[in-house]
């Protein structure tokens, strides 16, 4: 079928903010889809609330709406734009659910908007548990015994019949939210109750457990002519029972014989045909380890995280093909973009092994439950390719950017056998390291397989790596041992650990012995056809296929896996850097390890190396490619952390040089600069041990802010109020801090704001000042922010501009940097400087139209601001207001504390914009999922320090028409102000039955629409506060922990609902 000519304008829905279960993969798929549609000549209108994405760039779509992804808002856009068609299958679950809502509200019919891609009926058939089960029965495909329930009793009855364990899967939730495996009645009752609440249709599926079977996934595609194919097969290292997003995954399948594989492939294709999928689809299957029995687990009728992984694992661009299929093209008429000679109707053949390991956020949530089960907890993932499974796994571990480069974790080493076994049975994010430890202790493959149900073939990969470590350790600086270690993927860092030397010395020896990496191409066809895909991975002991280009090139380091503090914003900046390098006439080479992102789409750069972002791998690529230099400013802290080693190895760091980076990041040197420039900053001390920290804190006076130097996203940063809290902090974080100094700073209560500065060494351009809505103390990534600033005087703004100019020049910034300020009593204090692109780059770039990363890149390549036609100083501020709001994923992380502080906790962000500030706020809140009714009720649980401000807040809620609930102290205060308040019993007041006390009941019964809880700083109250917050999150009740956010919300609500006051 040729493409459709009856449509011209297509509305594409994005996936909104990044949350656990819905990350950068949808930026990748959405971007690909938009580009594919435009390539076919269609006009593309895009809606997404997430400003950090590449898909919301003007270059990607003809019209971009950075608006909340709600049915109301999109309905308005449909009326305004009158698109001919809607494509919802590339924006994750959010877009699918939205398409269903738009179909239901009648706007699609009214405006004659055709739905492209897989039809809603098919989507419902795949997503509605009951319909799906019926379809499987009709097709004769096996599914585990299951029952859809709407009440807890129904669930208990089912489990009584089939026996425990059973799995709970709430309907229409993403990433398995609210699901879990239940071993007992009590578990089941609790999880089902929660699952019913989280499901928008109050429905859960209770299922016979097939935990322990092999988990296999197929990424399949189908077109309207019924051509169907498997793009990629994947097999989970972890058996069924752990969410595939939390599983280590290998591609292609590793333990299936042809008979098993083809049986499952038949099933996957049968399903995609029965569901009439038009585009991409993911099929998850469970394969018995002891018979030919298999079960269908689920089908995702859209592109997904797995399809992004499959695309990067094979080179086959699923989302792009899915978009083309959606407009009527068939797989037999689309050319394979990799070979350019064969067709898209092609099943990739791999001649390498791919390993994916999830990246979890537990470093940010020390209290959170680390167990991985059926609900996804990872924020991102890494992928690595190798010519053997050991190499792939080993490189994936190196890509994680955690405290280890290999399978050795001191923490696992310290456990006794009993605890070790426990950690194998109850999988956590660190199970891989516990497995390694068990095998190191001589536990047999059988022992470990018994405890984990992991296939011995997979376990042997781990064992082999450990044996290689042992051999290497016994033969320090011996060529043969080194050769073998490298052949199976061990890093120079690991060898340095084993040889008790520096990685640098291993590298020198390796180079001397000519043990050098070779690069192989990813070509979809195992070399059967000629391809010129500029997509490579490293291996050892083989022939090198990557030829450095004759043209001058620049290497750009990406930002690695998505994690809290380092999200899709950095990928945005990386991609823009690439564009600027190319338009300046150089070749752009990208290195990155994250399969979810746009930057690892090989069509974005001139050459892509899918590699761990370690000094070793980066140096290897540099030695081969001999680029003009490397750009580190856009890859977040990941890239910046490489600066030292790269510079020591003589690599040209383009832009701000190493000395200047150190001046910004090294506390002492930075203090010198501040002093020289006569700027203000909160007083601070550097402590090398606990005693020095305590002395420093007392000298400065509490409260103080403590943190390790060189941190990412405020990790391990805390405000402490006294010596005791400081001691607690140091005890908890000493391991993390290691031998790096601890910073102790005076804590100023003021208004926080930040700027990004573009500097060519002489002139400085400030695209804008972002004012934080919450006062200092909450991490900038977790703060709401507004541009242009709403509360800064002209004098303060002028001072910010002046300080920025001075600092940028003094720090020899060439490119971009970010400065955070605190304004206290009209005085401007410098809080910190990040000598790199920050999280706010995409936000401000989109608003101001100034592509900041591109401007910075051109500066780095030698073009001054003036040469770029840009003036120094602050850009003029628009009248329109733009609000950024953070989005959190607490509901996915059991036992994580949602109280906001200096440690970053949000996973994503949204933008709201309007001429009126209150409307911009409202849209930001809507985008972040804060939809409140006109008449609701709120619960106030306020710390003593916040009590003075609570009356006004309560008053404003009352004037909108809200009922007030509060604990005794606050209630008395409100009563005094003539505000009718219902008093609720505090957590602690009935010590005997603390968990069931009244305040918890009130939240659990969802009688309140919003919980305001500010009891976080105060240690004594914090346990109560924690319980209250946990309850709110478990029951999906909106929660705010800062009164500043509450004030902003009130401003929005007052505009939305109006208020009533007596004359």
């Amino acid at each position: 079928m040729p493409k459709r000519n009856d449509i011209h304008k297509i509305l594409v829905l994005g996936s909104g903010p990044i949350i656990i279960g819905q990350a950068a993969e949808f930026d990748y798929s959405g971007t690909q889809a938009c580009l594919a549609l435009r390539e076919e000549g269609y006009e593309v209108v895009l809606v997404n609330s997430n400003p950090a994405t590449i898909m919301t760039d003007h270059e990607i779509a003809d019209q971009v709406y950075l608006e909340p992804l709600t049915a109301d808002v999109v309905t308005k856009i449909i009326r305004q734009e009158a698109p001919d068609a809607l494509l919802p299958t590339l924006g994750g679950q959010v877009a699918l659910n939205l398409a269903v809502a738009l179909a239901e509200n009648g706007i699609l019919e009214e405006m004659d908007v055709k739905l492209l891609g897989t039809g809603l009926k098919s989507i419902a058939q795949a997503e509605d548990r009951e319909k799906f089960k019926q379809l499987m029965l009709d097709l004769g495909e096996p599914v585990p015994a299951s029952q859809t329930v709407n009440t807890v009793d129904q669930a208990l009855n089912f489990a009584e019949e089939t026996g425990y364990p059973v799995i709970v899967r709430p309907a229409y939730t993403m990433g398995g939210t609210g699901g879990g495996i239940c071993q007992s009645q009590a578990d089941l009752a609790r999880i089902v109750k929660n699952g019913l609440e989280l499901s928008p249709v109050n429905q859960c599926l209770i299922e016979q457990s097939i935990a322990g079977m092999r988990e296999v996934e197929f990424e399949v595609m189908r077109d309207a002519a019924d051509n169907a194919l498997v793009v990629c097969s994947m097999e989970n290292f972890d058996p069924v029972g752990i969410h595939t997003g939390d599983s280590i995954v290998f591609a292609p399948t590793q333990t299936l014989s042809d008979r098993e594989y083809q049986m499952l492939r038949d099933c996957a294709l049968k399903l995609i045909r029965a569901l009439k999928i038009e585009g991409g689809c993911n099929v998850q299957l469970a394969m018995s380890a002891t018979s030919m029995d298999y079960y269908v687990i689920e089908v995702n009728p859209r592109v997904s995280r797995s399809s992004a992984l499959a695309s990067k694992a094979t080179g086959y661009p699923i989302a792009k093909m899915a978009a083309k299929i959606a407009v009527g093209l068939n797989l037999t008429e689309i050319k394979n973009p990799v070979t350019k000679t064969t067709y898209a109707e092609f099943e990739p053949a791999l001649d390498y092994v791919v390993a994916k390991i999830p990246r979890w956020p537990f470093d940010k949530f020390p209290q959170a439950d680390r167990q991985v089960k059926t609900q996804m907890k990872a924020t991102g993932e890494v992928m690595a390719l190798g010519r053997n499974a050991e190499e792939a796994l080993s490189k994936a571990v190196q890509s994680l950017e955690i405290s280890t480069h290999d399978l050795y974790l001191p923490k696992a080493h310290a456990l006794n056998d009993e605890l070790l076994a426990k950690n194998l049975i109850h999988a956590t994010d660190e199970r891989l390291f516990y497995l390694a430890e068990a095998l190191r202790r001589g536990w047999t493959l059988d022992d470990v397989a018994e405890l984990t149900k992991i296939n011995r073939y997979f376990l042997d990969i781990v064992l082999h790596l450990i044996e290689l470590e042992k051999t290497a350790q016994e033969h320090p600086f011996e060529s043969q041992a080194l050769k073998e270690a490298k052949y199976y993927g061990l890093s120079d860092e690991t060898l340095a650990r084993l040889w008790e030397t520096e990685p640098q010395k291993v590298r020198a020896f390796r180079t001397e012995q000519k043990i050098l990496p070779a690069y192989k191409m990813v070509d979809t066809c195992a070399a059967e056809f000629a391809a010129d895909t500029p997509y490579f991975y490293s291996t050892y002991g083989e022939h090198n296929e990557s030829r450095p280009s004759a043209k001058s090139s620049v290497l750009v380091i990406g930002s690695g896996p998505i994690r809290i503090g380092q999200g899709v914003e950095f990928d945005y900046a990386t991609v823009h850097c690439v564009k600027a390098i190319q338009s300046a006439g150089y070749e752009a080479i990208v290195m990155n390890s994250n399969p979810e992102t746009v930057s690892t789409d090989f069509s974005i750069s001139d050459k892509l190396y899918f590699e761990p972002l370690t000094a070793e791998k980066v140096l290897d690529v540099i030695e081969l490619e001999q680029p003009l230099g490397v750009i580190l400013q856009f890859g977040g802290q990941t890239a910046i952390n490489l600066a030292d080693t790269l510079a020591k190895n003589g690599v040209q760091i383009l832009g701000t040089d190493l000395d200047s980076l150190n001046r910004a990041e090294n506390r002492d040197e930075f203090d010198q600069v501040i002093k020289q420039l006569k700027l203000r900053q909160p007083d601070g001390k550097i402590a090398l041990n606990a005693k020095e920290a305590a002395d420093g804190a007392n000298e400065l006076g509490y409260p103080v802010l403590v943190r390790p130097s060189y941190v990412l996203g405020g990790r391990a940063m805390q405000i402490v109020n006294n010596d005791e809290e400081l001691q607690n902090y140091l005890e908890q974080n000493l391991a993390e801090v290691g031998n790096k100094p601890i910073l102790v700073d005076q804590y100023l209560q003021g208004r926080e704001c930040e700027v990004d500065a573009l500097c060519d060494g002489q002139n400085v351009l400030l695209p804008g000042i972002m004012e934080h809505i919450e006062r200092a103390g909450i991490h900038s990534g977790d703060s709401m922010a507004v541009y242009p600033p709403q509360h800064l005087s002209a004098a303060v703004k002028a001072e910010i501009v002046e300080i920025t100019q001075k600092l940028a020049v003094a720090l020899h910034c060439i490119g971009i940097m970010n400065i955070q300020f605190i304004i206290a009593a009209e005085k401007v204090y410098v809080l910190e400087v990040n000598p790199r692109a920050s999280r706010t780059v995409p936000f401000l770039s989109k608003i101001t139209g100034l592509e900041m990363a591109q401007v910075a890149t051109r500066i780095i390549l030698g073009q001054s601001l003036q040469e770029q036609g840009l003036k120094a100083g602050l850009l003029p501020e628009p009248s329109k207001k733009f609000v950024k709001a953070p989005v959190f994923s607490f509901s996915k992380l059991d036992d994580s504390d949602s109280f906001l502080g200096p440690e970053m906790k949000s996973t994503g962000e949204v933008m709201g914009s309007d001429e009126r500030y209150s409307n911009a706020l409202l849209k930001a809140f809507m985008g972040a999922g804060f939809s409140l009714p006109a008449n609701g009720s709120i619960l106030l649980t306020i710390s003593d320090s916040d009590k003075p401000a609570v009356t006004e807040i309560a008053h404003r809620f009352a004037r909108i028409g809200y009922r007030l609930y509060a604990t005794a102290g606050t209630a008395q205060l409100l009563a005094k102000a003539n505000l009718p308040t219902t008093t609720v019993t505090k957590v602690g007041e009935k010590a005997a039955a603390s968990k069931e006390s009244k305040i918890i009941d009130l939240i659990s019964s969802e009688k309140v629409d919003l919980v305001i809880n500010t009891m976080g700083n105060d240690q004594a109250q914090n346990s109560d506060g924690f319980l209250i917050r946990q309850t709110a999150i478990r029951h999906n009740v909106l929660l705010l922990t800062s009164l500043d956010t509450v004030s902003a919300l009130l401003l929005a609500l007052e505009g939305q609902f109006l208020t009533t006051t007596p004359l």
Partner: protein
Amino acid sequence: MKRYLTLEDGTVYEGQAFGGSSTSAGELVFTTGMTGYQETMTDDSYAGQLVIFTNPLLGNYGVSLADNEDLEPACAGVICRQLARVTDSWRASESLDSFMQRHNLPGISGIDTRELTQKLRTKGSMRALITDEVLPAEKLPAELIQDQIASFAAVKNQQRPYRIPGSGFTIVVVDFGAKQSILRELIKRDCNLVVVPSSSTAEQILSFAPDGVLLSNGPGDPQNYPDALPMIQKIQEKTVIFGICLGHQLFARANGAQTFKMKFGHRGFNHPVQEVATGETRFTSQNHGYAVDAASLDQTLLTKTYVELNDQTVEGLRHKKFPAASVQFHPDASPGPHDSVAVFDDFIAMITAQQEEKYAQKK
């Protein structure tokens, strides 16, 4: 232990030995299938060939005798990047290494199979030798490959006809090296099978009163089977014929078409094949180094029924006059996708139609 792979162009690759210990020569070919190494090794069409597996891992799920395509491996040697150390499959009765040792099939691992594949892709297929010591290229015995295929054919010629009873149509399978999966598909369709040696004459075949004749797959150049052509010419006038792989090529040649040696052949599971009549595309299992020359079809009574989507290779033929057809790919899969298994139903349908016609004529 070290082992060497010497190519006819003189290149020597060093790797590790596994499997059997014999010296082995053959035509070097690569397959891109990611599963099914056992089926591939025991597929008689690989007789006389050294098979490179582009999938970097071999032996990962062991060997299960039920998956054999013949009783013994047919290929001359196995080349791979890595042999799995551990197998954990309930289906496996032994490791690949032990299976290959039992059958004295030499293997070599640790080879840069991707580079080797690229070499074959650009230079075309080559002869090579697996040895335990370095051998100069000029020592590569040129006739050895041909001998192997010839001796294989001789074995197939000597076998006695045997019967696999069934209650449906009687099918004579002419065994040039038939895969078990072809027999299995016919058995699934209740056929009464008589498997005869490839040297059988038309008279001998017709003496079994077949409802249909299946020309099986087999190794080597179709030109090496001159006796099969008159046999096919006679049979197609009498009964329904269906050819697979080598059988397809022989059917084409018997009807005046030409075959040629491909640069490096089609070996793998991901070849999209389009049915000319419907435009439908299916993924097929393929293993052939020769193909039917499309241009040579013009002077024949053959029409193309299937083509490979990417390079337009002739993948299926039908006779315009007789109830006879053939496919170049393996509808029996094993290894590979099952997408085209319905081709066997087409064969049965052809027989049914033929029977009905005969019945009508009799009436």
